[in-house]
């Protein structure tokens, strides 16, 4: 099925829902509007998969409706109560799923290698992305994202700034529990695990702002654990780096210890660090592996009502 076909069908399906309820400017259907190399390849295979499956499912549904209707009691269909076996039909009913699964398996494996987070075929083979890759270290805390640019020795909280058209290579870890890193319009999910280091790679097609968030349940702050991804031109990126390097705050191992304490990022106040002690990500991985924990205080989980009241007071006091 064509690219427009499915997209159009889905949009047509959504349109009445949107119309009845006032509608919105932008659809918000992120997966159907990929803006990066990886997400585009994923979307391509997704469409192939759906198309092939529909080729099987729709006729099957029609056959079911036909059988129900044609052979309803009092209908026209002939009645043969003992008929319960046919080698031909058996061969067909095993054959069709078998062939479908064969084809889909081939496509699935091909796709897995193309978007392998550690070494995506889609990026290494295509010349579309150019320039020296940018390295970003990602540390997920309870419940914020810290993006460290080791080459530039700067860091940004809850905002990821990347140059468009350049491959970005992430190394990711978490301080406490498992999170899941995703920017739906650019790249799919990768687990961010404490005491471990995973990798991800993406290329943004063009300049723009994209939502990113944590997809794995990590506690009370999950819903606010999102970040803005800004894809900018290379010149803009260089300017941003320079500006950030001039920022007064610096991030050291000791400072990170305070930063990593549980914090609900309600109405983010985004911040930047003009200097970051090198090797912070590896340091965090090592610390966590040797048993470092940043506890969630009991007040956040247990005394729910008191916690709610405190939170309310804090909001009123403008603390968030």
């Amino acid at each position, binding site marked *: 099925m064509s690219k427009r076909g499915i997209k159009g069908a889905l949009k047509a399906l959504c349109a009445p829902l949107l119309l009845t309820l006032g509608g919105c400017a932008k659809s918000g259907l992120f997966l159907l509007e990929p803006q990066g190399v990886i997400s585009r390849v994923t979307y391509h295979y997704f469409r192939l998969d759906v198309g092939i499956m529909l080729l099987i499912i729709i006729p099957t549904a029609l056959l079911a409706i036909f*059988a*129900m209707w044609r052979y309803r009691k009092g209908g026209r269909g002939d009645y043969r109560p003992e008929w319960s*076996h046919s080698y031909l039909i058996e061969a067909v009913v095993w054959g069709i799923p078998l062939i479908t699964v064969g084809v889909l398996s081939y496509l*699935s494996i091909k796709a897995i290698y193309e978007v392998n987070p550690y070494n995506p075929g889609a990026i290494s083979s295509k010349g579309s992305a150019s320039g020296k890759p940018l390295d970003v270290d990602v540390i997920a805390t309870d419940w914020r994202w810290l993006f460290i640019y080791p080459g530039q020795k700067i860091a940004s909280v809850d905002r990821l700034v990347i140059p468009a058209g350049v491959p970005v290579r992430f190394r990711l870890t978490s301080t406490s529990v498992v999170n899941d890193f995703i920017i739906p319009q650019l790249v799919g999910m990768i687990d961010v695990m404490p005491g471990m280091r995973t990798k991800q790679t993406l290329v943004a097609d063009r300049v723009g702002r994209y939502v990113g968030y944590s997809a794995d349940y990590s506690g009370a702050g999950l*819903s606010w654990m999102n970040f803005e991804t800004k894809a900018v031109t290379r010149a803009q990126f260089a300017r941003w780096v320079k500006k950030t390097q001039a920022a007064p705050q610096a991030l050291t191992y000791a400072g990170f210890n305070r930063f990593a304490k549980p914090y609900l990022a309600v109405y983010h106040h985004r911040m930047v660090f003009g200097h970051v002690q090198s090797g912070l990500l590896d340091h965090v991985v090592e610390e966590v592996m040797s048993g470092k924990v940043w506890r969630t205080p*009991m007040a956040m989980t247990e005394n729910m009502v008191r916690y709610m009241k405190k939170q309310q007071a804090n909001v009123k006091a403008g603390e968030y």
Partner: protein
Amino acid sequence: MFVHLQGPWNPVWGRLSLQAIPYQNPILLGTFTFAMIAALAIVGAVVYFRAGPYLWREWFTTVDHKKIGVMYCLLGLVMLFRGFADALMIRTQQAIAVGPHSPGYLGALHGYLTPFHIGQVYTAHGLIMVVFAATPLLVGIMNIVVPLQIGARDMAYPYLNALGFWLTAAAGALVMLSLFVGNFAHGGWYGFLPLFELPYSPGVGVDYWMWAFQLSAVGTTMGSINLIATIVKMRAPGMTWMRMPIFTWASLSTNLIALTSFPVLMVSLALIGLDRYFGTHFYTAGQGGNLMLYNDLFWVWGHPEVYFLILPAFGMMSEIIPTFSEKTLFGYATMVVASFAIGGVSWGVWLHHFFTMAAEPSVNSFYSVTTMLVGIPTGVKVFNWIFTMYRGRVRFELPMLWALLALFLLLVGGMTGMMNAFATSDYMWHNGVFVVAHFHMMVLLIAASIFGGVEYWFPKVFGFKLEQRWGKWFFWFMVLGTAWVFVPMFILGFAGMTRRLDYIPVTQWAPYLRVMLVGMAFYVMALGFFVAHLYVSLRDRVKNRVGADPWGTTRNLEWMTHSPVPAYNFAYIPHVHARDEWAWRKEHGMASLGNESFEDIHMPRNTGVPVLLGGLAFVLCFALVWRIWWLAAAGLGAVVLVIILRSFARDTDEVIPAKTVAGVEGGAQDALPAPARG
């Protein structure tokens, strides 16, 4: 003791204190009031009708597989209601709490539930629906139907059967109690490590979750041992393997899954227990722990568990569709093979629950393919049901409507399941609501089969049919609700919306979330129609009385004996001549049960020990949750003591004299089957 506990602890009350009672929370206070009124009404009714001794004698102490099955189903229905209430809360919260300007009520910043509260609601919804609603309902139906289908008088181990039920009930009670004393786990029903470790979940919520889960796992394992033994050893003479009814085959396959997978769950939960109680490091991030170990262990149980739920549902569809197509099942042997193929493949797919953990592409490829393989036997089943209707005479009575709904839900669920199996697509929505919508298609399929199965076998158990008018309203509003809730959810899946949010940051998603509320309204109305359905059926029970074979075109042994089934099931153990024995007998003029000389029937005697053990297990787990060590020790000691004492009991059987049997058989109005319907 061994670990650092946040908050107070004392030797008498453990961690329990008045602060553990959430009386300040208006939602829980309301729930408590409702629960108390309901409990008082029930207790009042029992006292008023002096039903106490009757209930104790005939139900609480029973070892009759049919009564135990009925109690399983009642437990499942109560928990289904609770799980539905949780679903209502999730949907309303998400419809309100969209965008930074959305209002907040009852102390929440957005919506009316705080993050930890909705976390508990999610967890409870998932755990309850899977473990305390679907499982008891399915186990209950298997309990009732399997012995009847194979011509047995009871289960192989009637005492174990009762024990399994009471342990499951105790686990359910523990989950319910967590509403009012303490709280429940807040991270999702399958547990997240290391989030469920003490430093990140310092309270008792995870302990409640863990012990309730553990207890129900013990109960289900006992049930599976029992059903396997019953099917293997207690079949009526002449019932060879390939003459076994298809639902019995499905039960065998499903219980083999349960027997082999539930112990894995118990171990994985026990290791969390060791971490939380003794400070070991099985799943911690540091000090040698491995949090992915939990994912592996849990889903080695978790995925077979999915098929543990779905195979009996398929089995019920395979019983209902032939009956209401007035035809034998198409491809019996294929169906058997497919059931076991699904059971077998279920062991090789678990890693797709964490495709995003950054495994080698070769690993993800392997599990992507194995997951797709499940589609083959499942697809075959769909085709076989369609070809069962083909050249039949399809009657759209209520059980058939449910079975057909299940079939169409399977098409949607199967299609989306194949989309999830496609690993790279899964990367995009792995923890997203697309997956949620997919597995709700599958569990709603299970629910539809259960409702179909209950409609279908209800007259067999209670001797009267459920009325059809309100039942059809109930059915159609369930269909409407499902469409209005899950079509928007699939679309939100394409939007990339993730699971377990208490606040939705993307305002464009608001319309879909509100449309889902319309669906929830349909579901609420469906619940009303369900109550009306039950009420009218009970009111008109005399009018709706039926004979042995209420549907006229049934095919298996369970329809040969009276409705309701006498305690001993069959006055004579039938000799089986063919697959679809009852259909064969009707065809060959052997439908009469005959009433020559009756014999004494040897049956197990009722016992109060299982309900006592269930109660003690409840006390033990409660004490462990709150770390009241003396009570835990006492509870454990009592359990062991009761088990030892019971093992000395010799007088566990009784004999139903031939005279009583003759009386029952003579008195039954339906010794001859009802005439087959036009």
